[in-house]
């Protein structure tokens, strides 16, 4: 975890032990996602499960965050542009200490700080309200420009959905970020190949995908999105890339970690209940047990 612990910021560790620690965190996050969705009976399981490793690599290794003072001016910024992955973000934020785990079970309930899509005014650790797709990268450009103007060293991360990049606003932002040479900005695309209702290939083609970002002036990395070591390497490379922003195309599986949800368009949103809920929890619990400590909470 790279945030303040007794006033000290931990170094970004590398190596097998760290990857194993993060992989364990990822399964804890997965369990909390399913637990929350099971209790609430609503939400977006598929697009939350596909981003777990990315979120864990960012929040528990890469980023400098301050869970007890979420608005700390030196914090790294994370923007979940694909706001429908909200429950994944909430699970990570609670595990990092931004709010208690129990609060997860207020998700999407009247009066809750945890809205169906992220709300910057309600949820500690949420930078901007998202969910109307295509807008987060513009906001991240703003915070990245602010870091430069203010002489601050914080970095800026924006996680987008693959289908989300069909929005024109994303490419307005892509053009601007490279023009401004924002090497303190990293976009991560959760390329799981499915969107709300269908597979991506049904829609107007975005291929050649990486080449598009490259043509827009970005440093492009293409990584297996559930491979934590590969994600950490990519984040290292982004940090050492000067003069231009980096986009990491993370090749993921929608619904990853719950066998019957994987690659199924139908699990973009939906109710996890009954036998499905038990199966999902059992699969994740088995993996948690393999880390030798058991216990989800």
């Amino acid at each position: 975890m790279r945030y303040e612990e007794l006033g000290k910021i931990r170094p970004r560790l590398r190596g097998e032990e760290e990857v194993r620690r993060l992989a364990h965190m990822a399964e804890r996050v997965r369990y909390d996602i399913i637990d929350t969705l099971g209790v609430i009976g609503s939400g977006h399981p598929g697009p939350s499960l596909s981003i777990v490793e990315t979120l864990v690599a960012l929040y528990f290794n890469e980023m400098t965050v301050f869970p007890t003072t979420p608005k700390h001016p030196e914090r790294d910024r994370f923007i979940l542009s694909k706001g429908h992955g909200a429950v994944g973000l909430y699970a990570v934020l609670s595990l990092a200490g931004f709010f208690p785990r129990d609060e997860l079970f207020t998700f999407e309930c009247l009066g809750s700080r945890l809205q169906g899509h992220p709300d910057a005014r309600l949820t500690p650790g949420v930078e901007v309200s998202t969910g109307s797709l295509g807008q987060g990268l513009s906001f991240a450009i703003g915070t990245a420009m602010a870091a430069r103007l203010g002489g601050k060293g914080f970095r800026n991360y924006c996680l987008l959905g693959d289908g989300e990049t069909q929005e024109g606003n994303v490419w307005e932002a892509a053009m601007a970020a490279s023009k401004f040479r924002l090497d303190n900005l990293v976009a991560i695309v959760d390329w799981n190949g499915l969107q709300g209702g269908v597979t991506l290939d049904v829609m107007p083609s975005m291929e050649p995908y990486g080449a598009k970002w490259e043509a827009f002036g970005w440093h492009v990395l293409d990584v297996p999105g559930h491979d934590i070591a590969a994600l950490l390497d990519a984040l290292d490379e982004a940090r050492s890339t000067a003069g231009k922003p980096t986009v990491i195309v993370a090749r993921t599986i929608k619904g990853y970690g719950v066998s019957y949800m994987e690659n199924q368009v139908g699990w973009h949103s939906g109710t996890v209940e009954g036998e499905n809920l038990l199966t999902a929890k059992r699969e994740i619990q088995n993996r948690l047990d393999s880390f030798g400590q058991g216990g989800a909470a």
Partner: protein
Amino acid sequence: MSSLREALGQTLRDLGAENPRIVVVNADLRNSVKSNYFVDAYPERTIDVGIAEQNMMGVAAGLASAGFIPFALTFARFASKRAADQISMCVDYSFNNVKIIGAYAGIFTGRQGVSQQTLEDTATMRAMPNMTVIDTADVVEIKHVLRFAASYEGPVYVRIGRDEWPVVFGDDYRFELGKGQWLRRGGDVAILNSGLMLSHALDAADTLAAEGIEASVVNMPTVKPIDAALIAEIAANVGAIVTVENHSILGGFGGAVAEVVVETHPVPMERVGVLDEYSESAPNADLAERHKLTAPFIADAARRVVKRKPRVIRPVGIRHA
């Protein structure tokens, strides 16, 4: 006469000198909205995203979230329509301290026609829960309103015109958020103005006075939060209201006043503004005539509402034989 957009550009540059947290976010139109003065003085505090208003609003919101005071300048049409959702999500709902300048607001845009005019921006912006919406009548008001916007913490939308325009206000002008300004007092009818038709509203009051109709003229730059207490007081005490605006009569300043009037003290009322139709390319004076926004039409509306005032108020329960 004094140029509205020059006042915008020069005031922005002056504010930039006073406050290093002020930044300008342009979407190409620096020469049209006259942010070029700021650009020349503070290039390091200028961000031009190109012709990309949606991106502009997100970038401005990000800057605001990190402590800067961004002025995002574009034509009112592009701000309120093309980037409406970005404003809603990133600026208004997220409550970021962005100042959105809707230049070329209304129909007076230098003969450029419908695509550069805006008739519905006030309606759109005032329906956003956190937004403060202010229209401006002349160069003096522009200076004061921009200064206020820079000092206020929260999303603000300011409507500003383009061309040479009559100067109404003097050095004694004071802007107070959400407060109307009495310019003339008369008990027969009240003309409430927001924005560029103010000199016509005052001329109409002169015309009416010559006929023995005493008109109040109240300038109300703040459309949101509307000065509901003042409107209710005017409705109760004057009993007839005409609103005047450089905007569609649907959902704008007139609509905001009507909402207050019907819920507090219903009285005869008319809205002078652009009817539910598109405008066209023409010199400003011709457009003002075509859309019946000038003093004679305001005076006509005033005469009509005065006629509709109840002559005799009969106490309830008393019947005359």
